[in-house]
């Protein structure tokens, strides 16, 4: 691994994020002889989906990972390795922001800040789990489903012993299987979507039989292991002294409002929760790309054309950042964005590019149809906004409780930026990645204003906390 970022003599394409989209973009460019740089903040390439194990074990992969994922990860990383003379990967490198007029980004790597000029910028930053605050969600023991998964699949450590899984979407079933395989006791899966809604989406889900089959496989595995899956149920709150000890769940109505008279209390030490994802758009926002609001597809996302160009010159966005459709779509979109860049360079013309991408696009259509089935089922409903009580912390970094937000709304605040100024919600270390979605949706509901009027929390430079020393080190 390289300790210092070596700035190339002339700018080359720079790709942000070493997940399925970013790696495929780099490989497609490399196939055409174009060198590129990948900047990724994780210890190793692969992204959250193909996170490599941090432990050397004879299997090579964590025992909880199925063969299919193993093969996909191996293929992707082997391809990356094959082009290592064309693709430079910087891991543990965080992008602090960019200067779209100067065609450069500022990268923090090894406590040193470096300015990296690009000839094209591919933003493949993916997504993260959307937070929905509820009483007790800041207690140690409550984690995102994906976060817990990384512990068992990459680090081979159990994040807890007795776990309850709540949320929505196919990830819950996979996680339940993996947690069980890891030796954790899975009390149950509480899926907010109704079973009837799932049946209604079967035509869409039939668009991808192998993926549908995966889901059925997980379900029958859970049944065999005696792990119940409850549809139309969800989280109410969590209690405990210093850590989680009691988890309350209840049936949800069609708006996902919990029916409190039917609530049940479960003794468990861990809660894995995932009510959907949000595109990681801080960089596309900071660079000034145009965004639109899509409720069921993770809130705001950058506008892209069919070659994944954003509204900013030389900037492309591919993968979950440009709409949450999962890793299969991300792989295809990464390739398409690279072909788009080849068109812009004049290396191939539009017609050739269309020909090269024809089968990719056919594939994409099928995958997206499948994902739309789930998005209808799993798009978060308004009832979730009623979960927190007035003492529930909404902004974890700045300890802003719901009553402070209510007080601010009572003074007439009608957009999320003013709310941040008044309450400090979204001003802390994570820059609103945890509370931003709730604040926006809650404000929209309470004030009856549109998402456009509410706006989004503007991402500002630096996108991650950085010391003055790191800037000073970069000057030398």
């Amino acid at each position: 691994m390289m300790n210092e970022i070596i700035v190339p003599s002339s700018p080359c394409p720079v790709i942000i994020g070493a997940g399925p989209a970013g790696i495929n973009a780099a490989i497609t460019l490399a196939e055409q002889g174009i060198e590129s740089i990948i900047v990724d903040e994780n210890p190793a390439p692969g992204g959250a989906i193909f996170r490599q194990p941090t432990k050397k074990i004879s299997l090579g992969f964590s025992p909880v990972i199925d063969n299919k994922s193993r093969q996909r990860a191996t293929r992707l990383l082997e391809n990356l390795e094959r082009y290592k003379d064309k693709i430079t990967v910087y891991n543990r490198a965080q992008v602090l922001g960019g200067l779209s007029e100067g065609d450069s980004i500022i990268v923090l790597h090894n406590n040193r800040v470096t300015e990296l000029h690009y000839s094209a910028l591919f933003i493949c930053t993916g997504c993260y789990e959307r937070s929905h605050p509820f009483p007790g969600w800041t207690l140690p023991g409550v984690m995102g489903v994906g976060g817990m998964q990384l512990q068992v699949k990459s680090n081979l450590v159990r994040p807890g012993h007795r776990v309850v899984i709540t949320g929505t979407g196919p990830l819950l079933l996979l996680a339940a299987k993996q947690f069980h395989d890891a030796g954790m006791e899975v009390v149950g899966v509480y899926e907010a979507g109704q079973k009837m809604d799932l049946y209604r989406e079967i035509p869409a889900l039939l668009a991808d039989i192998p993926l549908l089959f995966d889901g059925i496989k997980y379900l029958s595995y859970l049944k065999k292991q005696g792990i119940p899956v409850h549809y139309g149920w969800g989280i109410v709150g969590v209690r405990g002294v210093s850590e989680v000890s009691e988890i309350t769940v209840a049936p949800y109505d069609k708006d996902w409002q919990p029916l409190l008279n039917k609530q049940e209390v479960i003794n468990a030490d861990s809660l894995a929760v995932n009510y959907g994802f949000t595109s990681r758009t801080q960089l596309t926002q900071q660079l000034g790309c145009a965004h639109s609001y899509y409720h069921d597809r993770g809130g705001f996302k950058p506008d892209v054309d069919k070659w994944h160009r954003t509204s900013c010159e030389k900037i492309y966005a591919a993968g979950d950042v440009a709409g949450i459709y999962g890793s299969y779509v991300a792989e295809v979109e990464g390739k398409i964005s690279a072909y788009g860049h080849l068109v812009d360079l004049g290396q191939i013309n539009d017609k050739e590019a269309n020909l090269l991408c024809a089968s990719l696009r056919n594939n994409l259509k099928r995958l997206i149809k499948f994902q739309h089935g789930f998005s209808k089922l799993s798009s978060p409903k308004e009832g979730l906004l009623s979960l927190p009580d007035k003492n529930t912390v909404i902004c974890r970094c700045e300890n802003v409780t719901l009553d402070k937000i209510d007080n601010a709304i009572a003074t007439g605040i009608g957009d999320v930026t003013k709310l941040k100024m008044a309450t400090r919600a979204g001003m802390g270390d994570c820059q609103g990645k945890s509370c931003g979605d709730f604040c926006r949706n809650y404000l929209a509901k309470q004030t009856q204003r549109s998402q456009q009027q509410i706006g989004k929390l503007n991402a500002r430079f630096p996108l991650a906390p950085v010391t003055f020393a790191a800037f000073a080190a970069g000057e030398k």
Partner: protein
Amino acid sequence: MLNKNEFQTQKKSINTITLRENDMLYEGEIGNRKIVIMINDEAVYAYQGESVLSTLLSHKIRGFSQNDHGKVQGPYCGMGVCYCCMVKINGINKQRACQHSIEDDMRIDTRSNHFTTLIPAFEKE
């Protein structure tokens, strides 16, 4: 915090086998070097290269972070987004446990935050 000599002494004095209760595999199945690091000046086992978060979780340490307002938190997103798992690593505050890997002679201090130690009045608004 321990100075370097104290660190070495403390490191040698580790006799009690601290079980890593939450490891999914047995010791023999893991090829990483098993090393001793310091968590809050106490010697514990860790595997070189695993994430700091995993070391903490393997020793059943979960409420290890403290935000700028003195509130104790645990890991939440587990993938570098939420900044809820920040600890002091080798004397530097606000390092995300989930994004750092274990290295030799690493010193980790939990519930450390320069805001709340330097400005105790900050919290008591």
